[in-house]
């Protein structure tokens, strides 16, 4: 993947080959600026690769589609719509009854009952993120792309949100591709972690996390896998 700007050509991604199975939770892990967001945007169809192709279910991806919803950080919410209005945004093809049913279901699923008529400016960061997820899920997509969705939250809320996301994923079982720079987050959430190198980024290693959920953050296997990634990235074990 090559970008051109101000006369400079930057190769952001190089030789990326990734296969994802349906219902899988895959994390793309790498330091900031390594190109993982670019990779995600390309997969979702917002960017087209300068070479190579993205195929989903055997079909070439040429643009964004409601089957693959990208969850932006809270900025993606529409501030002029209430919680209900935002969730209903993608549901314009459904009947009134079906729409209301889905809104009620997803409000409950993400834990925003009582806030249906609130505006995003009245919600906390964590609640806004949950609303984003609810809006994405309401259209029943096959895939969800999440680009560091918990980046703007404090670390305590992040732990809670990870549990919430896993709970929702276990209920819905969409395929999730989750970009993060946080090693622990990747090991806590994903079935497989694709560790990326620096720019021009390529996938260094794909680690399979074979611990069943709920994962014990102190278990030896968790620490073993996490340390393995630390080593892969060339990071020291001590601060």
């Amino acid at each position, binding site marked *: 993947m090559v970008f051109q700007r101000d006369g400079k050509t930057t190769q952001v991604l190089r030789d990326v080959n990734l296969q994802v199975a349906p219902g899988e939770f895959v994390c793309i892990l790498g330091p900031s600026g390594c190109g993982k967001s670019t990779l995600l945007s390309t997969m979702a169809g917002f960017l087209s690769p300068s070479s190579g192709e993205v195929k989903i279910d055997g079909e070439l991806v040429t643009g964004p589609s409601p089957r693959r919803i990208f969850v932006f950080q809270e900025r*993606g919410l529409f*501030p*002029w719509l209430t919680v209900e209005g935002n969730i209903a945004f993608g549901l314009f093809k459904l009947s009134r009854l079906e729409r209301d049913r889905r809104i009620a279901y997803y409000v409950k699923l993400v834990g925003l009952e009582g806030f249906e008529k609130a505006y995003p400016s009245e919600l906390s960061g964590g609640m806004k993120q949950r609303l984003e997820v609810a809006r994405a899920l309401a259209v029943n997509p096959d895939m969800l792309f999440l680009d560091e969705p918990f980046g703007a939250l404090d670390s305590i809320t992040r732990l809670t949100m990870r549990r919430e996301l896993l709970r929702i994923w276990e209920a819905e079982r969409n395929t999730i591709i989750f970009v993060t720079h946080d090693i622990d987050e990747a090991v806590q959430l994903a079935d497989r972690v694709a560790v990326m190198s620096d720019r021009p980024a390529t996938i260094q290693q794909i680690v399979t996390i074979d611990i069943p959920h709920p994962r014990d953050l102190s278990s030896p296997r968790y620490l073993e896998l996490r340390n393995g990634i630390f080593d892969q990235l060339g990071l020291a074990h001590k601060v």
Partner: protein
Amino acid sequence: MQLSLNSFLPLSLRVRLRPIAFIAALLIAWQIAVSRSPVHILPGPSEVVGGIVDLIRHGLLLKYIVASLFRVTWGFLLAACLAIPIGLHVGWHRRAEMALNPLIQIFRPISPLAWIPIAILWLGVGDLSSIFLIFLGCFFPLLLTAINAVQNVPAVHANVARNFGLSPAAVVYRVLYPAVVPQLIVGLRITLGVAWLVVVAAEMIAVNSGLGFLIVDARNAGNRYDLVVAGMVIIGLIGLLLDLGMRSLERVKSLRWSYSED
């Protein structure tokens, strides 16, 4: 025991009364200064009130206020109906903006008042020329507000809309229009203020009725400075009411969000 005025009134009332108390103090100071001064260079508040009563008695006050408001309304609405759609379109399409921008930048700095001779030449003395001047004074600010409002809409909103499968037209209707409303309303409020300024100036030269005409005519027809100041006071008060009216529109809940919180 300590007694003070403060303890009698609740805070919210005290805060509201402060500007009124301040204005009252200024009026008293004005009256005193005028009655003490040997040279009559400015009418006092009592004379101004007398002037206003005079106007009411001759049935002119309401007539002039309505005339000015009529022109402002027409000029402002015409400008809004043209400038906002054009501005939204130009802001949305990069190429349109590049094509039109030099033209906008050339016409914008020309004060509407510089158009007065041409307005009178084309439209004669009367309502049409003053409406035309107000239209000019409002058109460019509203055009730029609309262009700016579109360009301030974060790109992520359009991307989300495309992601959910909205057609390009639906992206404009369901995302762009709601997103620009708060900025447009602020722009409309400010431009309404400009319209009110322009109408007074336009009426001084190009028409035979209205508050601007009142001021010029009062001086020419007998040095009635009490009417001059009365006219100024009424212009100020109506300007204030127009502004307050627009601000109350800004406070509607679903329009109250804005991007500045980021």
